[in-house]
């Protein structure tokens, strides 16, 4: 049943064909059938196209007096846009709960979501990987805004090793998210000046909530004894959190979830756990927990018990409709989990 034929068969066929082309076509009826079937299929598809394209949208567009349509890449941005936009906007997020933005794969429906949007919001700082380039191109012809664009570069963290690239995980510092909310507010006002007053009002309410949250996280983290204030996670997303709330952050992987970790990283981290007597490590909702389990097992073999302190939301929020499905709920959940485990 092998589908490979020897080269000599080919050569023979080649020679035969050269001399007598007609004899080479073995069963003309079958072939004619094949042709007609394939043509029928193509015709079917082409007729299918027209019906598919005929079926267009339900709700009235923004130009016709409907809501301002916003498409956001991550759930955190979608949440902020909804808070600021209120009843005047309809927000769709591209990346659902538990999705890792570095590895996001587009689906066909995303084209419509981006094409139909009156305003597209994305994180920027290369969080969205290969999508970033497209967003930059799109911004020339329509309302596309990187929500991180107005953050003072001095407040951004560099990735280590003298790199030229910034750490994109800005949402972990609530004070930076306040800046993001202001950028979203400005973008909404630019796209829909008629409701500017409402947007300003909503934004100031939301920013007040964020400021309270910022102080709340600060005071909660301070309640952890200084020596045990170390946050160990699978990948380096929590850098801003560490800077803002004065907790030391160690990650096993680099910034990107795609980078490999070396065996030395694993053993270094394990030794540090044991030496400093750290109580707990954390797993993340959008990163597999296998690597952290390896470290825990390693520490146990050295006679030190470490437990998994809980699951933190890092690159994506929780399910919609739950408390962790909002930005504020997510930050609160992370903080409570960390404080609970390390206290």
């Amino acid at each position, binding site marked *: 049943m092998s*589908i490979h034929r020897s080269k000599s068969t*080919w050569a023979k066929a*080649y020679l035969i*064909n050269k001399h007598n082309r007609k004899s080479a076509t073995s069963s003309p009826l079958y072939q004619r059938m094949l042709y007609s079937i394939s043509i029928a299929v193509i015709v079917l598809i082409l007729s299918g196209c027209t019906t598919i394209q005929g079926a267009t949208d339900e709700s009235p567009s923004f130009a016709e007096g409907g809501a301002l349509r916003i498409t956001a890449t991550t759930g955190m941005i979608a949440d902020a846009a909804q808070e600021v936009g209120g009843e005047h906007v309809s927000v769709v997020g591209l990346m659902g709960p538990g999705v890792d933005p570095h590895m996001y794969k587009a*689906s066909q429906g995303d084209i419509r979501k981006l094409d139909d949007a009156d305003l597209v919001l994305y994180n920027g700082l290369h969080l969205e990987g290969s999508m970033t*380039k497209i967003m930059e191109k799109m911004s020339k012809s329509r309302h596309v805004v990187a929500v991180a664009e107005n953050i003072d570069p001095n407040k951004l963290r560099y990735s280590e090793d003298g*790199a030229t*690239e910034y750490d994109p995980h800005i949402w972990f510092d609530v004070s930076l998210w306040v800046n993001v909310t202001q950028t979203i507010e400005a973008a909404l006002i630019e796209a829909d000046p008629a409701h500017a007053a409402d947007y300003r009002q909503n934004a100031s309410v939301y920013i007040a909530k964020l400021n309270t949250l910022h102080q709340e996280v600060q005071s909660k983290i301070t309640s952890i004894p200084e020596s045990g204030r170390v946050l160990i996670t699978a990948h380096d997303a929590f850098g801003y959190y560490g800077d803002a709330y004065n907790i030391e952050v160690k990650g096993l992987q680099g910034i990107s979830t795609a980078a490999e970790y070396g065996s030395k990283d694993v053993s270094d981290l394990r030794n540090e756990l044991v030496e400093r007597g750290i109580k707990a490590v954390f797993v993340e909702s959008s990163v597999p927990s296998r690597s952290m389990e390896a470290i825990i097992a390693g520490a146990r073999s050295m006679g030190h018990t470490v437990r998994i302190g809980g699951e933190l939301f890092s690159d994506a929020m929780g399910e919609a409709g739950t408390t962790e499905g909002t930005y504020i709920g997510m930050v609160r959940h992370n903080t409570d989990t960390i404080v609970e485990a390390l206290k």
Partner: protein
Amino acid sequence: MSSDFWIILTACLMSAACGLLGCFLILRKMALIGDAISHAVLPGIAIAFLLSGTRDSLAMMIGATALGLLAVFLIQWLQNSGIQSDASIGIIFTALFAIGVIIISLNARNIDLDLDCVLFGEIAYVQWDTWTANGIDMGPRSVWMLGSALLIILLLLALFYKQFKISAFDPAMAVACGIPVMLFHYLLMGMVSMTSVASFESVGAILVVGMLIIPASTAYLLTDRLGRMLMYSVLTGVVSSIIGYYTAYILNASIAGSIVTVAGILFGIAFVFSPKHGVLIRRLRQRRSQGTAIAE
């Protein structure tokens, strides 16, 4: 123009280019070279990043192209020195990929420098990645890039069809006829490398690897003649692109994934029902010959 049109056009250009090259790769038992190139370019983008300090697509493309060419030449060279073709592909691409991993983990471990982010494109976005020349919007960049790749392939195949054909089927005979076989092998490999890298940048890896192998394999089941095989291969690729795109539309799924799946299904149909080498026709022939044997 609508995004559906540009995406389908890009997919069709890419699958036509890959379908043509794929036929020769299958005949030379080097079908997996697309996958090999997709991994072997890693040190290229790592070095390009270290030298330029940016993740701009131009620098990444230059690095990837250089390493893609280096990889295929090394593979061809190993093969010329008597290593099996599958082994030479395996050796070169794993070694180059490993070098890339080392370069990144030594120099850039905190930078998001994986192939998915910096090189591999996404077919869903092609219509927004336009090329502007002198302030005029010329349409999607990938259509231009893949269109010119297809044109170069068609031109070279038209000019040297006989040479490519004999070099693929019977290198010994080709040498006897005075055809510089090595030159044509390297030329083919060069085309494969350039087309793959251009396609990776436009549509992503899995689609290119799939379209280099599957349509050509389908065509291989349907005919014994190279000319027809090339035609069927392109046709299968184009049909897969169109059906695949609308499958993705209906399922709201990944476009690349759907196109490759459809190509796989078409291969399955050909595998069973091919009038020449299908499973069904073989059974039938077997039974018929048994029947005549018994009758005698």
